[in-house]
């Protein structure tokens, strides 16, 4: 263990020192090879041009290398792997995709992912908007915000334990220690094993992600609401609009762009969701999702072809959002 701490410390030092050495070193080298400052060099103008052209790539070098190896190359490699058999020894064309279409587990995952997509971004954005609007009107709003925001810091696994405890089930008649069942029994109903009831259990898993993501939606939307010009609301008040009219006709239309951003950001999280299902049910009781299915085929089925095909499906689902994000970013950076 001491060994491990020492290794980690040395790595930090090597990493930081290495990057300083790289940036300072290449910069020094460039100025040495193509000098233009002393004025004595006969090629000062040409050298200046060369350094200006080369330097950006020296700055970008390490980042591009890391992104290339860890993110860009894998996208193409996964695409290639998805056309091969389980251990990449034979080309199989689109067999893995054909298998996906017929596989019950895959259809279940797609269906569940679709439900997650419908419910989680909508619910989290809705609760986030409610929290943002309501907390702005009370004196203890900042404390309330902080508490609603808190689950953002908790890992999906930690949140899963927290909610598994909420959903805990004891046979009818014995004392319930899960608060949900205790409440249900108090109301006079039978206790349920919530995460083992097919179809409905999906919603109990979704609650966990909604609980985590609402704070994110609230923070972003609250900032957007504060950016609404006061005059528009004052004008509405003078015209006799009530609170609900102001909310739906003045506030919501002005922050519509931000709502869309929040909604799509949470959608991406939902498409990749893995930890919650892995920890809570591991896909049992009809709660499978694509992220966990892919992990299953990769590490339990040891079929890299099928695993890669599922990953590509996730990528395809993400692509429309990716394109719209790039468009938006382009529009925002124009003129700079």
């Amino acid at each position, binding site marked *: 263990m001491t060994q491990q701490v020492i290794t980690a410390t040395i790595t930090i030092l090597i990493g930081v020192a290495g990057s300083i050495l790289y940036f300072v070193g290449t910069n020094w080298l460039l100025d040495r090879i193509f000098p233009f400052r002393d004025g004595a060099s006969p090629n000062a103008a040409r050298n200046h041009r060369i350094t200006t052209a080369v330097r950006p790539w020296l700055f970008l070098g390490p980042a591009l290398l890391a992104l290339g190896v860890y993110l860009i190359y894998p996208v193409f490699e996964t695409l290639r792997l998805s056309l091969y058999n389980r251990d*990449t020894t034979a080309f199989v064309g689109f067999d893995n995709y054909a298998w996906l279409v017929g596989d019950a587990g895959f259809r279940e995952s797609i269906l569940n992912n679709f439900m997650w997509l419908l419910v989680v971004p909508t619910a989290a954005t809705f609760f986030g908007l409610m929290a943002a609007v309501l907390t702005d009107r009370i004196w203890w709003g900042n404390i309330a915000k902080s508490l609603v925001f808190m689950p953002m810091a908790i890992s999906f696994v930690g949140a899963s334990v927290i909610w598994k405890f909420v959903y805990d089930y004891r046979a009818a008649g014995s004392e319930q220690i899960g*608060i949900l069942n205790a409440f249900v029994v108090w109301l006079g109903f039978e206790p349920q094993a919530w995460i083992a009831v097919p179809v409905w259990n999906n919603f109990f898993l979704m609650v966990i992600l909604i609980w985590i993501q609402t704070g994110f939606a609230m*923070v972003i939307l609250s900032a957007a609401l504060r950016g609404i010009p006061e005059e528009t609301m004052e004008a509405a008040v003078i015209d006799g609009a009530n609170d609900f009219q102001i909310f739906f006709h003045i506030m919501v239309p002005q922050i519509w762009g931000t709502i869309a951003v929040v909604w799509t950001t949470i959608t991406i999280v939902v498409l990749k969701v893995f930890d919650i299902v892995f920890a809570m049910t591991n896909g049992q009781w009809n709660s499978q999702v694509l992220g966990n299915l892919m992990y299953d085929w990769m590490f339990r089925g040891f079929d890299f072809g099928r695993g890669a095909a599922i990953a590509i499906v996730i990528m395809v689902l993400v692509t429309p959002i990716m394109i719209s994000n790039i468009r938006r970013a382009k529009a925002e950076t124009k003129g700079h």
Partner: protein
Amino acid sequence: MDGIAGRKSALTWAVHISVLLLVALWTLPTAGLLISSFRDKDQLAVSGWWTALTTSTQNLVGRADGAEKQVEVDGKFVIAGNLLDGPGQTVTAFGYRSQEPTKFKAGEIADLGDGRGLTVTADGDYIIESDLRIEGDRGQRIFYTAAIPPRFSLDNYRSVLGSGGAGRAFVNSLTVTIPSTIIPIMVAAFAAYALAWMRFPGRALLIAVIVGLLVVPLQLSLIPLLTLYNKIGAFAGIPAKGYVGIWLAHMAFGLPLAIYLLRNYMAGLPGEIIESARVDGASDFDIFIRIVLPLSFPALASFAIFQFLWVWNDLLVALVFLAPQKEQLVLTGQLVNLMGSRGGDWEILTASAFVTIVVPLLVFFSLQRFLVRGLLAGSVKGG
């Protein structure tokens, strides 16, 4: 909009109550976990955490001392002792057969046959009186119902951190997280500066690629990287799974967000400062080190917090790139294992979960300002 008119007091109350309800829903689950982790494990297993402050009733079983402890008093043979193990507890009922564990009220005399009688009083004292010498070495079993006052302790944490392995996993998590947080900052900052303030062909395309990479699912990287690591491991004769591999992976996965956040921030710095430095003959390297980097501190802090939380809370990358043995098991991995193997042992699970989330929560509450700022810059471009 506050106090536009007094007629809205009813609405104001509705707002207070709604927010209170919302906050309760969002904090109670965590509160339940936290309270439970400090409760006595026997109480935790039989009563809800919301009853933690009330006295709980438990059905317990104890054993009286064996025959060798009997003493002769006034011609009777007597075994006496106490069943309870803590202050403040009271016995309400007892019995000597498992079918009728609460047959007798405290203080009543139960006839055990053969001229023997058993009494348990409310304070837990029991007396077995017999006319004849008591035979047999095993003591009489006594079933009793006890009212036990709330008990809180650090016992759950003691067992989880020590033999439970959470202490070791905590160190492993730190080992993974700290280098993964610090190393990418330098790399990202240089790249962000190039994208914000240097002119070169392909810059717009690179920015678009970075924005695109922000949402690429990690799942896509896993199989190719695992294969690559296995090949490198086999080639160099080193284990394919280890800390160096996961440091590099986390660094690369964090780069798109880091570059994006920092570029946005740096692009928003006033251009006049940078232009005038250029006119004075400063190179881009000097401008970056002396002017831009110090001014970008808030953005660097935002990213560092993001990366720290993300790496600490990550499960998937750790499952793929680290070995499952205790030398490399991180907190999230350990917690998932416990959920599988000790699913019903809430004293273990609650304490382990809290050990897992306590560091992110501390970071969250102390540095929330930077987190919010980073979130705003990351999704709706600030400024």
